[in-house]
């Protein structure tokens, strides 16, 4: 289902993203394509390097965050809401351009501290279930949790079409679902905790090909 360009429901969002790429937005009336040109060229390989450090604010941003920074800074448009159809469509469209390319997983020196916090977070027990990410997705993947097979917990196919959601969703949505699953308090979208975890996951999944838009159960 994922490999079939047409049957993959995530491709609906990619198609939508392609339209948005050419649609002017904000007070400058500029479309993404005006600065970045054809996404197939300009955006190829970009998703393999995220999350990355935004030089201007010195903060960690993921692909969705980068799309919104571009909107507010350059297009002078309003930032798109988390998990909104348009934000998912644009980030899926951009990430789709890197399909098949390996995640770089490189951690630059200035992101080392964030990366280490992400690694700590990955190994820290949280919630009423008192579970860390590592206990399911590193030590017990492939076994079953009730009726479901535990995944290796890689983020290389996000934004992904999840059958449970019947919709496309971001990696942060999936991570928040895991927080909910272990009965821990869910961090807000774009919380440093989640971004650092995304950074650690990118390093952990280095070399895996980008599969966006993936299809997951």
């Amino acid at each position, binding site marked *: 289902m994922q490999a079939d360009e*047409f*049957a993959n*429901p995530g*491709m*609906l969002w990619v*198609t*939508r993203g392609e339209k948005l790429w050419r649609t002017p937005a904000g007070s400058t009336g500029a479309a993404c394509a005006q600065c970045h040109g054809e996404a197939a060229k300009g955006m190829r390989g970009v998703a393999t390097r995220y999350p990355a450090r935004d030089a201007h604010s010195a903060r960690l941003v993921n692909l969705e965050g980068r799309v919104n920074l571009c909107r507010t800074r350059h297009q002078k448009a309003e930032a798109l809401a988390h998990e909104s159809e348009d934000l998912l469509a644009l980030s899926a469209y951009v990430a789709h351009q890197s399909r098949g390319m390996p995640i770089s997983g490189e951690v630059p020196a200035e992101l080392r501290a964030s990366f280490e916090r992400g690694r700590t977070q990955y190994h820290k027990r949280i919630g009423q279930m008192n579970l860390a990410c590592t206990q399911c997705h590193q030590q017990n993947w492939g076994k079953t949790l009730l009726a479901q097979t535990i995944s290796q917990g890689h983020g290389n196919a996000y934004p992904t079409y999840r059958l449970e959601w*019947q*919709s496309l969703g971001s990696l942060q949505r999936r991570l928040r679902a895991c927080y909910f699953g272990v009965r821990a308090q869910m961090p807000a979208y774009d919380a440093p905790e989640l971004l650092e975890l995304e950074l650690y996951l990118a390093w952990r999944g280095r070399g895996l090909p980008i599969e966006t838009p993936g299809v997951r159960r």
Partner: protein
Amino acid sequence: MLARVRVPREAKRGEIIEIRIAIQHRMETGFRLDNFGRPIAKNVINALVCRYNGTEVFRAEMGSGIAANPYLQFHAVAEASGEFVFEWTDDAGERGSERASITVTG
């Protein structure tokens, strides 16, 4: 409503061709409740028609058992060059349409 349609660009006369359509739609079943316990109104694409040069070749009536973002696949015989027109409506009365052209040789 956003949709993707795939019809072969070219075909030989008499050839059986595969037609595929995927529509982005929530397909709200009407059985779910919102966070306050109020029922969410049913809203599914209830009818889809495909016409080939004006002749109806495919019709689907869908209900609440169809998953979100429905994907349909069917076959037709290529007879003449022309256009496939897809039209559908949902329970909220919203209409969508998509078209694809085909060149038939031989």
